[in-house]
């Protein structure tokens, strides 16, 4: 009697254990289905099709490295890589610098209520549709009645007015600084949050030792913010690398190929020339550059950092 009850008990425990063991996997099942269908399959097939001459009719045969060879013989494609490098560098450096400066300035406001208002003032514009941001900047750059030219005329510098997006000498720089002063960004919010997290002791110690604010920023704040800074740098760089909006909305890659970048080139190759295989090859090149960037940033994050052994 007692034995059978024990057995029953242990049986039900085994069942329960099995159920408990599979519970998390059951919860993960819908996630797995979504990610496999809409992320993993497309990613692997992009790599696979980059070795084929896949076209819009759905026909394809293996061509080996032919797509990659053609791309590296293509002068336009090579210039898109240089444009991407310029664009990504300008945006990453400018975003990090401006967001950090603004975060330090807001932090120097001691009153928490006023500080919250500054945060809100810079976070609110984040919700404006992003394509609208590009359109507005297009309006700023417009040759006739554009804000920048009107402003130059208003302060008597008529000689400097020019078609900012219409000439290859200024177009790339012009699209690179869209969104200036880059304060209304996630970077700002992450920096101010991290700065507020620095222990008051560290800051007071540095103040007691008679260090200037500038010294505190370089000796305390920047090293303490190493992780978020590198994280945000990677995020901004990866996003800028695959930019298509400035071209789609403003320049179409022109004039000539002055503002063409791999992301928009991929879009053009795919949906204007219908060369899907080649488009996938461009995607793989973007992926590889991104992986290299991620590798570098991981290395920078941990090399000689104070917070890891």
């Amino acid at each position, binding site marked *: 009697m007692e034995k059978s009850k024990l057995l029953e008990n242990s049986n039900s425990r085994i069942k329960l254990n099995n159920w408990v063991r599979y519970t998390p996997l059951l919860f993960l099942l819908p996630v797995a289905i979504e990610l496999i269908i809409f992320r993993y399959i497309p990613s692997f*097939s992009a790599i696979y099709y980059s070795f084929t001459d896949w076209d819009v009719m759905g026909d394809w045969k293996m061509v080996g490295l032919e797509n990659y060879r053609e791309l590296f013989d293509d002068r336009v494609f090579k210039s898109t890589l240089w444009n991407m490098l310029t664009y990504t560098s300008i945006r990453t450096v400018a975003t990090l610098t401006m967001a950090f400066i603004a975060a330090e300035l807001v932090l120097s406001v001691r009153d928490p209520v006023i500080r919250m208002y500054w945060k809100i003032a810079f976070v609110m514009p984040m919700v*404006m549709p992003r394509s609208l941001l590009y359109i507005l900047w297009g309006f700023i750059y417009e040759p006739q009645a554009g804000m920048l030219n009107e402003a130059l005329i208003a302060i008597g510098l008529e000689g400097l007015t020019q078609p900012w997006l219409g000439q290859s000498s200024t177009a790339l720089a012009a699209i690179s600084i869209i969104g200036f*002063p880059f304060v209304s960004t996630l970077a700002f919010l992450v920096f101010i949050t991290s700065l507020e997290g620095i222990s008051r002791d560290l800051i007071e110690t540095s103040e007691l030792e008679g260090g200037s604010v500038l010294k505190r920023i370089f000796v305390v704040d920047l090293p303490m913010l190493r992780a978020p800074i590198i994280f945000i740098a990677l995020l901004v760089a990866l996003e800028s690398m695959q930019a298509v909006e400035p071209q789609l909305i403003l320049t179409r890659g022109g004039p000539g190929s002055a503002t063409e970048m791999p992301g928009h080139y991929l879009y053009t190759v795919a949906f204007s020339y219908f060369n899907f295989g080649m488009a996938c090859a461009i995607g793989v090149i973007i992926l590889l550059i991104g992986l290299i960037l991620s590798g570098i940033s991981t290395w920078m994050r941990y090399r000689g950092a104070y917070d890891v052994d």
Partner: protein
Amino acid sequence: MMSTKHGKSIPQQIVLLFLAIITWYPLIFMVSTSLKTQNQFYENYWWFTYPFDFENYLIVWDRISIAIFNSIHYSFGTLVVVLTLSLLGGYAFGRFKFYGKNILFLAVIMLLMIPGILTLVPLFVLTKNLGMANSSLGFIFPLAGFEIVIGIFIMRLFFERLPTELFHAAKIEGANEIQLLLFVAIPLALPGLGTVAILDLLFTWNELLWPLVLLSDQDAYPVSAAVITFRNQYRVDNGNLFAAYVSVSIPLMILFIFVVRKFIRGIEGI
């Protein structure tokens, strides 16, 4: 004491004010221009002119309301999928210990490094083959695939911080796993879900490339894509054009006014 604290930061606040003006002026310009007739626009370029001309809004409303409705429709669908899957994924990774957990989590997080543009063409062909081209499902599921990665990450952190005693107590009371999820986990997870929801809304509302590739009917465009067609359509009249721009910015702005503090705190929690 307080006054010296205030006094100290005045130069900083002047610089901040300057940055805020540069950030906000394009938005103010957008509003002021939307309230002008063509003549008023040429009279005073930089600032508001009186009387306000609200007719611009009436003229563009028919076209705009379609786009706004589309965006709300897509955003709501994506939100439901993203919140459900982020909750399930975050809960599974955050509360349970199981064999292969770290590898599975890595398999999810690694997706952050796969650029969306890489999968543009295969995803388009796949969506088309699934019969989802030109449908809201074809908009919702592929975008959700991108958004749940960060959603699962945030929800995992959130569930890991909850005290396990809560779940033990409910279990002793006889709750099964489904009840635990519905009546213990979800109510506790609301703040985390709120952060995920806002990030998700910003992402969906802003997505431009996918609707352009997926939808062939311009009447199905969400606002991000529709503003580009407005630009070509209303080019001759700046008042109309900017009224369209202001109208599409308003829904998310209004929502954000109510949640901006929670959003800032949510980011602090990550």
